[in-house]
């Protein structure tokens, strides 16, 4: 820390004051646009506010009583939980397998990597709207391909049991390369002398994978999982684009908020939902922040 500082001449203002001048504008904007709405949201969740702007009354815990007794609440919680669990774990496994395949010298590796990473940089809503055309049960190209190989051609977008599968599929299609990218960084960070030592000790392939490759990649994989989990918790875009916000079989917490606020105009209840999702996100984000701190300390130690 010490070597990072300036030795400013005595005449100048104290260094910490100048520093505060540099960081203040960004922090002020964050407090106004992120922190304040967050606190304001908690207040609104105890009121009967609606979008028409009528007089606002405090209603105590009424919104929360309504919320916790709603069938839609339990449903949204299940859908969101399922979405996070399935999308993150499938992406992790597929991404890691892909990274193992891309690990050694592959001809045109740089080009392949770039091409694989393009979908995750594109707009999720735009891509999933287009997936609607591909997945369409009657004229979609996917079912036509399935027909070619004599497989069943289900109604991906209208069958209640398959809607969530379709949304998961698009998410996995977009984000598996993200897991691959981070897994590759993890694999590349393992020094080759460890593998050489294992070879001398005649360790089997599985043994090497289990006791060297996996544990040494684990820290970065953890980072990737946390990043994806916080994103998956807020899932809204794909649901809106593929099934719309009101469909119970795919209604995540964010989609439920949309329905409550913009279709039923119940701002207070919507804010209560906001608090619920915030609690979940803050929990995961806190783990994430602690995790980054830990990684930073480790890296610092490794460099020292």
């Amino acid at each position, binding site marked *: *820390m010490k070597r990072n*500082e*300036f*030795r*400013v001449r005595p005449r100048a203002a104290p*260094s910490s004051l*100048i*520093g*505060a001048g*540099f*960081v203040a504008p*960004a*922090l002020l*904007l*964050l407090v106004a*646009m*992120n922190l*304040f*709405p967050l606190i*304001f*949201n908690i207040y*609104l969740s105890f009121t009967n*506010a609606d*979008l028409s702007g009528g007089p606002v009354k405090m209603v105590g815990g009424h919104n929360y009583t309504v919320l916790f007794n709603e069938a839609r609440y339990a449903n949204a919680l299940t859908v969101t939980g399922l979405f996070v669990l399935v999308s993150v774990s499938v992406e992790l496994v597929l991404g890691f397998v*892909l990274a193992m*395949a891309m690990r050694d010298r592959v001809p045109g590796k740089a080009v*392949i*990597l*770039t*091409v*694989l*990473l393009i979908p995750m*940089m*594109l*707009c*999720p*809503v*735009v*891509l999933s*709207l*287009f*997936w*609607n055309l591909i997945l369409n049960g*009657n004229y979609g*190209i996917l079912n036509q391909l399935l027909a070619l190989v004599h497989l069943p051609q289900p109604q991906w977008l209208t069958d209640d049991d398959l809607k969530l599968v379709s949304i998961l599929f698009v998410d996995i*299609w977009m984000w598996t*390369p*993200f897991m691959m990218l*981070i897994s590759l*960084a993890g694999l590349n960070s393992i020094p080759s002398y460890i593998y050489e030592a294992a070879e001398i000790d005649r360790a089997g392939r599985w043994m090497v994978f289990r006791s060297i490759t996996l544990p040494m990649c684990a820290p*970065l994989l953890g980072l990737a999982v946390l990043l994806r989990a916080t994103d998956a918790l807020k899932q*809204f875009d794909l649901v809106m*684009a593929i099934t719309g916000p009101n469909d119970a079989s795919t209604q995540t917490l964010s989609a439920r908020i949309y329905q409550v*606020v*913009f279709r039923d105009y119940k701002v207070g209840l919507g804010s209560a939902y*906001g608090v619920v*999702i*915030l609690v979940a*996100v803050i929990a995961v984000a806190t783990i994430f*922040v602690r995790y980054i701190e830990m990684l930073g300390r480790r890296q610092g130690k490794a460099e020292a």
Partner: protein
Amino acid sequence: MRAVRTVLVVWFLLVATLPLAWLALTSVKTYQDTISAHAKFVPWSGPLESNPSGADSVRFAATLDAYRNLSKPVAGTPNDFYHYLGNSIVIGVLSTLAAVCLGTICAYGFSRFRIPGSKDWLFFILSTRFLPPLAVVVPVLVMYRWFALENTHLGLVLLYTSFNLSLAVWLMKGFVDEIPRAFEEAALVDGYSVLHTFFRIIVPQASTGMAVTGVFCLISSWNEFGFAMTLNNYEAQTVPVYFAGLQGNIEGVPWPRIAAGMMIFVGPIVLFTVLVRRHLLRGVTFGTIKQ
């Protein structure tokens, strides 16, 4: 083992690219060909007589009509595609410029000065990235009514700037940390003021980092949907919201036109991704992993 590996990589490449190729093909079809129960793969541009584009043919008559039609509003919508593209560009560019400027200034402060509780501040900044749009959209909406920012470009610019700040500060801190301090120390000894030093020494050296950060900020503003959808019914609608609105079109979803618009909308992002490919890892992990 090698064969398995090759099959795997080729399979993933196909899965990643084929949907995008299908998007490109769809954009040069006619409406009837896009919803044909016999998929048409092969664009054909010869005269129609020599082109057996019957119902069972895999050929279709390629046309650029969808691209030409982008300048006409779809039935039931007030504006053409370029109106919404203009909104996306204005909002994306302004919020990116603001986030990169504020982020660079802030990152410099954290990188070079002793700030009390700097670690906590940095983690506060990082944590704002995880705020779900739908969880704060109600208070933002109420706030925006106070200041008449609802349905305005400025409203979205402010939001996107603040939501991109976490990325901008963390990425730029990584880049600024990498600039050797010797130049600044020399400049200060020569009697430059701190501000002068920042603009004359740091900004030029951090310009690559600023460009990379800018690309990531632009992409996230460009792709955003939650706020754009809920805060704008009319004036400042961006392209993703426009396309989402076309889903329920009474005359059928105008697929060729949507696909053509999508090609124009995602094209620049594909280009940007290729440009920043070396920094992708950094960008998607907030600079916590540097290669």
